[in-house]
């Protein structure tokens, strides 16, 4: 059937099973918007800034495991989307971003609203395409979804010139796809898996360290089964929270710069480290020279370039995490392999000693609200069942420390790029994905202002997001570093001239609450959660000088933590 390029885009999205497109119109994409207008299968969500479109698509992807889709116009539309694209890239989130482009005959002419979108996004996408001929459009879109969602996922940009959206071509949904230059590995090497198992069964002080790859690779179930079967301690990275039940006894909490004492000490002292879908990020390893110096390291990852990039590993296994873990389980059961129970007992005794330091304890107060208390109570009031998005800073770390995630896809934050402004639009994506679930955005008065305009989108679509604003009148993490490392010279970290968030929320048509006393925290949270169909903006006025502990200073080893 012959369709215009614009119709092909919309028809393809429908055939690909895309439900929501987050976007913002403009000159170069008007044909596509016209095609969207004429149908009902694909719902377009109008954001208020293109950064919000990419973060919302990203939040949708993280909450579902399906690809998120954004549509923006050329020039500033594309450049505004870049932060969201880079955010998704750093966290390996499957995203397809369609950018409008000026007509092909004007490309390179410095035309109105022209930028080299393919050039600008190249370093922060898994791949990108410029469509030059409408006859290639459907196949390129198919490739984009295929590349974005397979292997190590990531964002893919498809730049579509306006004349291509007007031109006509025959359309058939491309069902099959083969790329000679892209064949992601799935199964792990069996010999390597057996070598790894041998090492694991001989381990006296084993430790499992898992990252976002387990969630992206759908390996949460097999990870949980394997960990319980072996009785090994386990820690998750910031990106990996929820892959293993956060309330389980074998779980030692998050590791890294603001991880728990027990997780970091167990990392430092283990003799066999099993790294799964994690990339040895600098916030996790601390000083790489001192990282797990006593351990043999097994690393399971779908991306060969993640292996031995920062830390040399002994047994690399390239493959889909879930496949590899299932294979391990099969072999363990078939050969009746047993870990060293006696040695493990001693190891757990040591770990319990570390755990007993209770490193997340904080001084409760009757006068001023402690941010940790808010999150602790949020966890209780929502019974650990909420989808929690966060922005970036102290509140993000406290949320990761105090909200225990038992399921994957529930904890949604910008781990790699650390993008302030991510939380609210990501919560929109999560709420569209799970309309009946509680979605909470944990944020701060700094971060929330970076995408505050999306409150308007939330009203338009009736998104009942619960915003927990930890308002300490400081860019808290900046302030903390300035206190620790710059002798208290608080350069530009004080947030002066803040808006009245209650009235701000109200003027956007939402419910606003200000909470100033510790005793008001729980009643406020309960009241907010009761408002099932309203967005509630809770402005918690918190302790201005609270710091995130424990902390590993940059350049130190995992055993060199600062406790409270």
């Amino acid at each position, binding site marked *: 059937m012959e369709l215009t390029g614009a119709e092909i885009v919309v028809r393809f999205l429908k055939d690909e099973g895309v439900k929501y497109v987050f976007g913002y119109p403009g000159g170069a994409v008007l044909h596509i918007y016209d095609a969207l207008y004429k149908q009902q299968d694909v719902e377009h969500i109008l954001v208020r800034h293109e950064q919000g479109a990419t973060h919302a698509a990203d939040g949708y992807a993280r909450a579902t495991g399906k690809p998120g889709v954004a549509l923006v116009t050329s020039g500033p539309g594309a450049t505004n989307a870049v932060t969201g694209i880079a955010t998704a890239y750093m966290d390996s989130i499957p995203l397809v971003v369609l950018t409008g482009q000026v007509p092909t005959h004007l490309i390179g002419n410095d035309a109105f609203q022209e930028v080299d979108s*393919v*050039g600008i996004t*190249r*370093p922060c996408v*898994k*791949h990108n395409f*410029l469509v030059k001929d409408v006859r290639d459009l459907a196949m390129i879109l198919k490739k984009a979804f295929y*590349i974005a969602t397979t292997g190590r996922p990531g964002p893919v940009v498809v730049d579509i010139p306006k004349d291509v959206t007007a031109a006509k071509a025959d359309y058939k949904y491309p069902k099959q796809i083969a*790329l*000679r*230059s*892209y064949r992601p590995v799935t199964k792990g090497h069996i010999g390597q898996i057996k070598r790894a198992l041998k090492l694991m069964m001989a381990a006296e002080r084993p430790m499992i360290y898992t990252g976002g790859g387990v969630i992206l690779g759908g390996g949460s179930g097999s990870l949980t089964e394997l960990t319980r079967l072996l009785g090994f301690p386990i820690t998750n990275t910031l990106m990996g929270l929820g892959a293993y039940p956060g309330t389980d006894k074998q779980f030692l909490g998050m590791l890294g710069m603001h991880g728990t004492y027990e997780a970091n000490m167990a990392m430092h002292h283990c003799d066999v480290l099993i790294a799964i879908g994690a990339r040895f990020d600098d916030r996790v390893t601390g000083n790489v020279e001192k990282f797990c110096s006593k351990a043999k390291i097994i690393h399971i990852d779908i*991306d*060969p*370039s993640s292996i*031995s*990039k920062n830390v*040399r590993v002994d047994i690399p296994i390239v493959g889909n995490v879930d496949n590899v873990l299932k294979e391990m389980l099969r072999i363990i059961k078939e050969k009746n392999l047993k870990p060293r129970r006696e040695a493990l007992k001693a190891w757990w005794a040591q770990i319990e000693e570390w755990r007993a330091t209770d490193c997340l304890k904080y001084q409760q107060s009757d006068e001023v609200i402690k941010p940790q208390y808010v999150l602790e109570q949020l966890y209780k009031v929502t019974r650990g069942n909420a989808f929690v998005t966060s922005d970036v800073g102290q509140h993000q770390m406290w949320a990761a420390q105090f909200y225990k995630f038992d399921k994957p896809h529930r904890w949604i934050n910008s781990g790699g790029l650390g993008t302030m402004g991510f939380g609210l639009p990501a919560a929109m994506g999560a709420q569209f994905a799970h309309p009946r679930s509680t979605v909470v955005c944990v944020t701060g008065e700094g971060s929330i202002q970076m995408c505050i305009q999306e409150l308007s989108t939330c009203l338009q679509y009736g998104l009942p997001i619960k915003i927990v604003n930890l308002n300490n009148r400081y860019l808290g993490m900046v302030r903390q570093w300035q206190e620790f490392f710059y002798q208290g010279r608080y350069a530009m970290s004080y947030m002066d001239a803040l808006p009245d968030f209650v009235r701000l929320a109200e003027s956007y048509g939402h419910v606003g609450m200000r909470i100033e006393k510790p005793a008001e925290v729980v009643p406020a949270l309960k009241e907010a959660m009761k408002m099932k169909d309203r967005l509630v903006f809770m402005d918690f006025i918190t302790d201005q000088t609270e710091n995130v502990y424990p902390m590993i200073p940059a350049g130190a080893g995992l055993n060199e933590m600062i406790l409270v």
Partner: protein
Amino acid sequence: MRHIISILLENEAGALSRVAGLFSARGYNIESLTVAPTEDPSLSRMTVVTRGSDEIIEQITKQLNKLIDVVKLQDLTEGAHIEREMLLIKVKAVDGAREELMRLTDIFRGSIIDVTGQTFTIELTGTSEKLDAFIEAVDDKLILETVRSGVTGIARGERALRL
């Protein structure tokens, strides 16, 4: 260590900038880079000369392999191989220097490909080292212009980089 990496990549707009961008973004160095289409017009062959420790070279090859446009690659320096680079050099050739330059060109098995009353243009092919040696041997004051193609190379024997 110096490595010569041969890459087969999709002959598409932007493929070159993906490779070049990767090297600059990750701080790898490029000593030389050549690229041209192959007998299969859908493929280009690129040769990159780079330096780095074993760990860095391992990362470079992994990161290159990750690029969607890269179809296949080979580190030529891992096995026996032949490398060639071409030099065109324009020199001032007057009086006694003409004789001397002709002799030098012969010794290096180069050829003089353009002549004027005042200049020679010499073509020379070989390893980068050989071209360096030739330039070294020519009196600095005589050199008007040099241009080098960058290194290309191929594995010795049966080993071949193909689909």
